C-alpha cells in the first residue's frame, strides 16, 4: 500500500509543471524579445516538450545560439523529417535540454524548409539542368556538436547545411550515388541503388617528418563491430585519429516507416543488441506519451528491473574488456564469469539472454514469478559480493591501475562542446543522468544513486565531480559504482515486486494512435541517454518518422579527442573504456 502511495505522489512530482510553466513564460518573453517577430508560436506538448516554431529557417542559428547562451542549453538531438506529404516542407527540429534552468524539459526549435523553385519546376516537367539544392543554415559555428547531425541530414535527405565546412558523406559511403536520399518519402525502402566509383572520401591529411598513417578496420582483430580508424602517428604517439563509421548502417529509420508499431518495437530492441531494454523502453514511452497510456505499476517495476539488469551485465562486460585490454586475463576471466551469470539470469527473467522481448507498448510482456524474483535477489547478492572482491583485487594491481590512470583523457570542455552523455560525461565532471534529470518509469520512486538524495550529498558529489579527470580509471570507477547502485536498485525492485499483488502487466492498447501526433521518448542506457522521437503515421498504427539518437552517436566523436595524448597500444583500452556501440550509431 505504502509503495503505491509513493508512486502516486511521485508521479505527480515527476513533471513539475510549475517549473515548466515558468520556463515557458520566461522562454516566451525572452525569445520573443530576442527574435522579435520571427517566432510563429510556442506550444507545450506531452507535458515536458516546449515547441517553438520559427517563421523562417534563416533564424535557426540565431535562435539556437540564444538558447545556448541564455539557458546554457545543450543540443540533445536534431531531427529532420520529410513532411511534404502533409503540406509542409522538410521540417527541422532542434531539441535542446536546459538543465540549469529547468530540469526535465525539452525545448524543440522547429523550422520548416520551403522547397526551392527549381524543384517545383522539375515536378511540372520542366526538365531544366539546374540542380535543385535545398539548404538550411548550419549551426556548427555556434554549436560544434551539430556537425554530425547536419552531415546525416545532408546524406539522408539531401538538404545542404550551408556554412558547415564538412559535408563529406557520413552514413552513405562514397560508393553511393550522390542523388539517393533514403529518408525522403519518394525513396522506396527496397531500392537497390547502383554503386558508383565517382566519389571519394578524404581523410584529414597530416604530413611531416616521420609521420605515417595506420588504417585499421573495418574488420578488426577482435570479436567486435566494424568501423574504420585512421591514425596519424609519429613514433608511437597518436597525432590524430579519424573515425569512419556507418559500416553497419541497416536503414533502421526507413525500415520503421514501413512497419507496424508492434514490429518497430522488436526493431528498436535490435538497434543495439546489448541495449535492447533501454531502446525499446524509450520507444514505448514515446508512444505511451502520445496515447496517454497509464502503464500499470507492476509493469513499471519490471521494466525498470530489466533496464538495471542490462546496465549491470554490460558494465561488468566492459570492465572485463578493460581488464583484457590491459593484459590482465585473470580479472577478465573472473568478470566474464559474472557477466555470464547475469546473462543466465536475464534468460530466466525474460526468456532471452539479451533481455529481448520484455517491453510492450503500454507495459511488459512477461511477469516475474515469485521464484524467479527470489532467485534474482539471492544470486545478485552473491554476484555483487564476488564482483567487489574481484574489483578489490584489480585495484591492488599496479599493472592494471597504472595503465588506466591518465589514459584516454576527455577534458570537461571537450565533454561540454560535444554534449557528451552517460558515463563518459559523468567522468568528465558533468552531472547528467536521464534517470535523474528526466525521471521515467520507476526511477522517480527509487534512489538511483547516493549522490542526489540530500543537499549535502549533492554538494559533496559536485566537489568530487570537479576532481574527476575523465581518464580510463575514472570510467572504471564510475562503472564499478554504477554496478553496485544498479544491483541495489534491482534488489529493491524485487522486494517491491514481491510486495505487489497486482496482476496487470499492460495498459489496454488503443487500436490506433492519433495520426501525425509526435513525442519524444527517452531512457538512460548503460551508455547514456537514448532519445527516440516518433511521429505516428496516417493509419495510426505505423510510423511516419522514427528518429533514434543513441548515446553512442553523441559519444563517438569523443574518442578522437581522448586518444590524443596516448600511444597506439592504448587505443583498444580507450575504446573499450568508452564502450560505444557501432550498430547503435550507424542504425
Amino acid at each position, binding site marked *: 500500500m505504502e509503495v503505491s502511495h509513493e508512486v502516486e505522489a511521485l508521479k505527480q512530482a515527476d513533471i513539475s509543471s510549475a517549473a515548466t510553466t515558468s520556463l515557458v513564460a520566461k522562454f516566451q518573453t525572452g525569445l520573443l524579445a530576442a527574435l522579435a517577430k520571427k517566432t510563429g508560436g510556442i506550444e507545450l506538448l506531452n507535458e515536458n516538450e516546449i515547441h517553438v516554431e520559427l517563421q523562417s529557417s534563416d533564424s535557426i542559428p540565431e535562435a539556437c545560439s540564444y538558447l545556448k547562451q541564455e539557458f546554457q542549453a545543450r543540443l540533445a538531438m536534431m531531427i529532420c523529417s520529410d513532411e511534404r506529404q502533409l503540406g509542409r516542407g522538410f521540417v527541422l527540429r532542434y531539441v535542446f535540454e536546459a538543465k540549469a534552468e529547468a530540469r526535465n524539459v525539452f525545448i524543440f526549435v522547429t523550422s520548416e524548409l520551403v522547397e526551392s523553385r527549381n524543384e517545383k519546376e522539375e515536378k511540372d516537367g520542366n526538365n531544366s539542368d539546374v540542380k535543385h539544392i535545398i539548404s538550411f543554415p548550419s549551426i556548427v559555428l555556434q554549436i560544434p556538436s551539430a556537425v554530425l547531425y547536419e552531415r546525416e541530414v545532408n546524406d539522408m535527405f539531401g538538404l545542404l547545411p550551408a556554412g558547415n565546412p564538412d559535408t563529406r558523406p557520413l552514413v552513405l559511403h562514397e560508393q553511393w550515388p550522390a542523388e539517393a536520399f533514403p529518408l525522403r518519402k519518394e525513396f522506396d525502402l527496397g531500392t537497390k541503388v547502383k554503386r558508383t566509383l565517382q566519389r571519394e572520401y578524404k581523410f584529414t591529411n597530416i604530413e611531416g617528418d616521420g609521420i605515417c598513417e595506420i588504417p585499421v578496420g573495418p574488420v578488426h582483430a577482435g570479436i567486435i563491430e566494424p568501423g574504420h580508424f585512421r591514425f596519424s602517428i609519429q613514433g608511437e604517439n597518436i597525432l590524430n585519429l579519424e573515425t569512419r563509421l556507418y559500416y553497419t548502417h541497416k536503414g533502421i529509420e526507413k525500415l520503421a516507416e514501413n512497419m507496424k508499431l508492434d514490429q518497430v518495437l522488436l526493431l528498436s530492441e535490435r538497434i543495439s*543488441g546489448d541495449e535492447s531494454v533501454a531502446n525499446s523502453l524509450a520507444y514505448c514511452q514515446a508512444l505511451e506519451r502520445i496515447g496517454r497510456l497509464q502503464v500499470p505499476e507492476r509493469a513499471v517495476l519490471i521494466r525498470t528491473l530489466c533496464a538495471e539488469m542490462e546496465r549491470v551485465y554490460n558494465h561488468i562486460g566492459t570492465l572485463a574488456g578493460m581488464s583484457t585490454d590491459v593484459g590482465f586475463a585473470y580479472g577478465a576471466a573472473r568478470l566474464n564469469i559474472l557477466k555470464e551469470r547475469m546473462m543466465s539470469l536475464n534468460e530466466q527473467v525474460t526468456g532471452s*539472454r539479451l533481455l*529481448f522481448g520484455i517491453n510492450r507498448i503500454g507495459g511488459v510482456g512477461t511477469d516475474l514469478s515469485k521464484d524467479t524474483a527470489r532467485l534474482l535477489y539471492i544470486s545478485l547478492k552473491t554476484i555483487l559480493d564476488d564482483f567487489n572482491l574481484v574489483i578489490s583485487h584489480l585495484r591492488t594491481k599496479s599493472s592494471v591501475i597504472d595503465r588506466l590512470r591518465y589514459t584516454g583523457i576527455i577534458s570537461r570542455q571537450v565533454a561540454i562542446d560535444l554534449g557528451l552523455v552517460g558515463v563518459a560525461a559523468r567522468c568528465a565532471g558533468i552531472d547528467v543522468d536521464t534517470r535523474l534529470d528526466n525521471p521515467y518509469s520507476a526511477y522517480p520512486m527509487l534512489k538511483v544513486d547516493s549522490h542526489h538524495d540530500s543537499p549535502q550529498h549533492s554538494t559533496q558529489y559536485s566537489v568530487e565531480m570537479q576532481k574527476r579527470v575523465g581518464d580510463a580509471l575514472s570510467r572504471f570507477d564510475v562503472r564499478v559504482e554504477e554496478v553496485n547502485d544498479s544491483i541495489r536498485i534491482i534488489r529493491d525492485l524485487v522486494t517491491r515486486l514481491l510486495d505487489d499483488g497486482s496482476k496487470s502487466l499492460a495498459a489496454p492498447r488503443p487500436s490506433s494512435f492519433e495520426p501525425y501526433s509526435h513525442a519524444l521518448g527517452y531512457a538512460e542506457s548503460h551508455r547514456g541517454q537514448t532519445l527516440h522521437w516518433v511521429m505516428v503515421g496516417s493509419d495510426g498504427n505505423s510510423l511516419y518518422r522514427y528518429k533514434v539518437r543513441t548515446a553512442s552517436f553523441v559519444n563517438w566523436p569523443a574518442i578522437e579527442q581522448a586518444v590524443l595524448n596516448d600511444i597506439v597500444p592504448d587505443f583498444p583500452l580507450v575504446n573499450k573504456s568508452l564502450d560505444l556501440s557501432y*550498430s547503435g550509431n550507424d542504425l
Partner: protein
Amino acid sequence: MMFDRFRRNRNNVVNGTDQGKAQVKGSNDILKELDQFEKLSFSSHGEILGNRVATLHGDFTDELGGTSAFRGNVSLTAQNVKAIIDNPPVLDEYQNAVDVCPTAAIKNLLGPGNKDPTSEGIFDTGKCILCGRCQDIAPNLFKIKNYPALAVKRKSELLSSLGGEPQLDGGKEVYSTLGEDLKCKIGKILGRSLAIREVDAGSCNGCEVEITALNNPIYDIERFGVHFVASPRHADVLLVTGPASRNMEIALRMTHEATPDPKIVIAVGACACSGGIFGDTYATTGGIDNVVPVDVYIPGCPPRPAALLYGLLLAVDRLKPNIRKEK
C-alpha cells in the same frame, strides 16, 4: 557441472555491503523471508584461492537447450498443412500469426499460389527472431520450445515443414559433450586447432555478445581446440553475422578472398541467414549468402553459445571433403 568442484557456503566469504536493505520500507516480512532463503541457499561464489583455480558453481545450464524460460525454436502443433487449410478457424488463427510475425517467417497460406496443401516448408527458422508473438496470438497452433533451432548445412533445411522438431534431442544434449565431439573431429580432420575469424557484417551486436561468450571461462571454447584469430589469413572458418549491410559488402568480400582455401563460411543468426528483422532493403543485402557462399547456417536471434558450438560441429564436417580434394 564441471565447475562445481567446491561448494562454499557464502558465510565463509567476506561479505560485500548489503545496501539492498536500507531501501524498502514496509516490506520487512519479505526481506526476512528473502534473508531466510539466502541463508539456506549455497552461494555460487567464485573464490580466489591463491594461485589455484578459481572455483564456482552457479545457475549455469550445461545443456544445449536453455533454462525453462528460454524462448527458443517455434514448433507448430498442426499435423500437416492440409489440417490447417481445411479447418477455417485454425486457418484464421494461423493467418493471424502470419500477420503478426515481424519477419515473415511463417508462410502466408492465402497468398497467391500458396494454397497448395502439398507445399511443405511453411516455417522458416532462418527468419524467426524468437519473439514469441506467434504463440501470443495463436497459442493453440504455435509453441515456443526452450531449445534452440539448430544449425543446418543447406538453406532449404531451414525451412521446416511443420514446426522444426530438432534433429537432436535439443533439451538433453550437453554442451561439454558436444565440445568433446568437436575436439575429436577437429583433431582427426585438421590435426591442429580450428582457426576462426569473426566478421560483423552489420549485426546489431547481439550475435557478437554470444560469440564473445564462447570465449568466457564458462563456455571456454579454446579447450576444444577452437581458436579465434585476428586475421582472415589465418582462418579456416569465417563466422559472419548481420544482414550484410551494403556498407560492409565490399569488406566482407575482401575478407572472404583473403581467407585461404579450404574455407568455411558460417552465417550466424537470423540476420545472416535471411536478413532477419532488417530484411532486404536499400541498406542491406538480405543475408550473407547474397555476398559470399555460405556452408552452414545457424539460426537464432541471437543463437545461444551452445547452438554456435553445434554449428561449428557441422562446419568441421564440411572441411573434410575439401581437404581431400586438395590432396
